[in-house]
C-alpha cells in the first residue's frame, strides 16, 4: 500500500522537473541572460509556456477524472461531450471572420463559448431523449460532436488558405499564445472548476457505483451530476480556449494514477492536477526542443506518448494497492 512517504517520494521530483523544463529550450539549456531584452523575453516566454502547460494539463486531467466517474466509462475524457468540436468551431468562426485581430481575447472567448454551447446542447438533447444516463449523454455527445465537426469542415472548405492554416494549427494544440492576463483568467476559471470538483469528490466516489446507488447513499444526483459535468466542461473549455485541442491527457493521467491512488477522488483529483500539469509541461518541452528550432504541436506529442502508454496500461490488468484516505493525511 502506498504511504504518505511514498506519495512524497513521487511528488519530490516535480519541482526539479518543472525547473528543468523552464531552463530547457530550443536555444539550449540554461538560465537566459536577463540583462538583455532578448534574455528577458526568452525567460518570460518559457515561464509562460510552463505555467500555461501546467494549468491546461491540470484542467484536462481533473476533467477526465470527473467525466470517467460520472459517465462510468473508462474512455470518457473532457472532449467526449462535444466540447472539443464546439471549441474548435467557435475558434474557427473567430479566425475565419477575422475577429481575432480585434482583441487577443477573441479567440479564447470564441473557443470557450463554442465549447460551453456544445455542452448545453448535449444536455438539452439528452434531457429530451428522456434521461441523463451515461449512455444517453455519451451517445448524444458523439452525435453532436460529429455534427459540429461537419460544420467545421464546411467552414474550412469556404475559408481562405491563411485562415485554414491558422485553424489547423490551433486544432493541433499548442501552448504558444497565452499572455499573462489571459493565463491569469484561465487559471482562475480552472481553479474554480477543480475546486468545485474537489467539493464533490465524495459524490464522485458514490457515483462510481451508479446514480441509483449514489442516490441511496445520500447524494443529490440531480444537482451533483450537472454540477460535476458543468465544472469538468468549464475546466476543459478553459483549457481548449488557450491551447487548442490536446488529446490523451484527460485519458491517460487518471488511468495511470488510479493504479496508485485507487478510485478515491479525494486522492485522485489533487494527484491528477499535479501530475497532469507536470505531464503536459514535459510534453511541451519535448515539443519545442525535440526538433529545434522547428517546433511541433504539443497535441502530437501527447498523442504519440499517450497512445502507446495507454495501450501498455491496458495490458497491465492488475491495479496496484491504493493510497488510503487516512494514509495521506
Amino acid at each position, binding site marked *: 500500500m502506498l504511504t504518505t512517504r511514498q506519495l512524497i517520494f513521487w511528488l519530490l521530483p516535480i519541482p526539479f522537473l518543472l525547473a528543468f523544463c523552464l531552463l530547457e529550450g530550443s536555444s539550449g539549456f540554461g538560465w537566459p541572460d536577463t540583462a538583455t531584452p532578448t534574455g528577458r523575453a526568452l525567460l518570460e516566454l518559457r515561464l509562460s509556456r510552463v505555467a500555461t502547460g501546467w494549468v491546461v494539463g491540470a484542467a484536462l486531467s481533473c476533467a477526465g477524472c470527473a467525466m470517467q466517474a460520472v459517465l462510468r466509462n473508462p474512455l470518457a475524457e473532457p472532449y467526449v461531450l462535444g466540447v472539443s468540436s464546439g471549441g474548435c468551431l467557435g475558434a474557427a468562426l473567430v479566425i475565419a471572420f477575422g475577429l481575432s485581430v480585434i482583441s487577443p481575447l477573441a479567440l479564447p472567448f470564441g473557443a470557450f463559448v463554442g465549447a460551453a454551447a456544445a455542452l448545453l446542447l448535449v444536455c438539452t438533447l439528452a434531457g429530451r431523449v428522456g434521461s441523463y444516463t451515461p449512455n444517453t449523454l455519451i451517445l448524444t455527445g458523439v452525435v453532436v460532436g460529429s455534427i459540429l465537426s461537419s460544420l467545421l469542415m464546411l467552414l474550412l472548405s469556404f475559408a481562405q488558405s491563411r485562415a485554414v492554416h491558422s485553424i489547423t494549427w490551433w486544432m493541433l494544440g499548442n501552448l504558444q499564445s497565452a499572455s499573462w492576463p489571459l493565463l491569469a483568467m484561465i487559471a482562475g476559471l480552472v481553479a474554480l472548476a477543480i475546486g468545485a470538483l474537489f467539493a464533490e469528490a*465524495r459524490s464522485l466516489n458514490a457515483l462510481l457505483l451508479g446514480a441509483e446507488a449514489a442516490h441511496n447513499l445520500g447524494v443529490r444526483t440531480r444537482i451533483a451530476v450537472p454540477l460535476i459535468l458543468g465544472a469538468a466542461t468549464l475546466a476543459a473549455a478553459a483549457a481548449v480556449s488557450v491551447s487548442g485541442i490536446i488529446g490523451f491527457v484527460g485519458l491517460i493521467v487518471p488511468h495511470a494514477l488510479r493504479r496508485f491512488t485507487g*478510485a478515491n477522488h479525494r486522492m485522485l483529483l489533487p494527484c491528477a492536477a499535479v501530475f497532469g500539469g507536470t505531464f503536459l509541461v514535459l510534453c511541451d518541452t519535448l515539443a519545442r526542443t525535440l526538433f529545434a528550432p522547428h517546433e511541433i504541436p504539443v497535441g502530437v506529442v501527447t498523442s504519440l506518448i499517450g497512445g502507446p502508454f495507454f495501450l501498455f496500461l491496458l495490458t497491465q490488468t492488475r*491495479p496496484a494497492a491504493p493510497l488510503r484516505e487516512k494514509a495521506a493525511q
Partner: protein
Amino acid sequence: MITLEHVTARYGENIVLNDVSFTVGRGEMLALVGPNGAGKSSLLRVITGQLPAQGTARVCGTDTVRLCPRTRAKTLAVVPQEIARDIPFAARDFVLLGRTASLPRFGGPSDADDDAVRDAMLLTETWNLRDRLLPEMSGGERQRLALAMALAGKPEILLLDEPTSHLDLRHRAEIMRLLTRLNREQRTTILMVVHDLTLASQFFSRLILLSASRVLADGAPADVLRPDLLETAYACPVRVIPLPGVSATCVLPKL
C-alpha cells in the same frame, strides 16, 4: 416506519406497481417474494424515493420523494443485488461510502466514522479484506462488503435486494443470522427481496407475495406459502413440504 397506501407506479406506460398497500412497523423483519417482473425491485425504488408513484409512500412519516437525501440515507440503507466489480476501491474505502451522508464535504473521516466502518466490517467478517481491492474479490466477498457498506451508516431501516444470491451456504446462513441479530438486538427494520422461498420461510415471520404488480398475499409464511397462491403467482405447479423439526417450509416446483 414504512407506509404504502394505494401506490401505483409506472415506467412510461408500463404499470409496475398497481394499488399496493402495506405498512412495516419499527423492528419488523419481512421478505418480499414473487416471480421475476412482479415489481419487487420497483417497490424498493418507490421506498427509496427514486421512482415517483401515485398514492402515498412514506418513510418515518415523511413522503419518500420529499425526504432530504442525507436524512434518508442516515435512516435507510440499501444493499443492492450486485455491485460493479471493476472499481479499484480498497475494501475499507468502499465501506466508508456507507457514511457518505455523515462525512464532511472537505474533511476526512472522524474516529466515529472509522469505528463505524470497522464495526460493520467485523460484523460481516470482511475486516481481514480491508486493504484488498474490489476487483480482486469474489462475488460473495463483494456482496458481504455491500452489506458492510449499508451497516456502516447505522441505519434504522435496511432494504436488501437479494443480498444472498452470490453467497455459498455458509455465508448465506451467516448473513441471515446477522440480519436476524440486528433485527432482534438493534430493532433494525428489515425488508428483503428473496427468491429462495425456503430461506424466506426459515428466517422471516412475515412475507409479502407480489404477483403481476399487486400484493397477492401478506402474512405469516404458513399463510403465504400455499400451493394455490404460489401457483397463481409463479404460473407453475409447486409442492409445499413442511420441514419437520424446524419452522421452515420447503417449496419445490413439480416436474
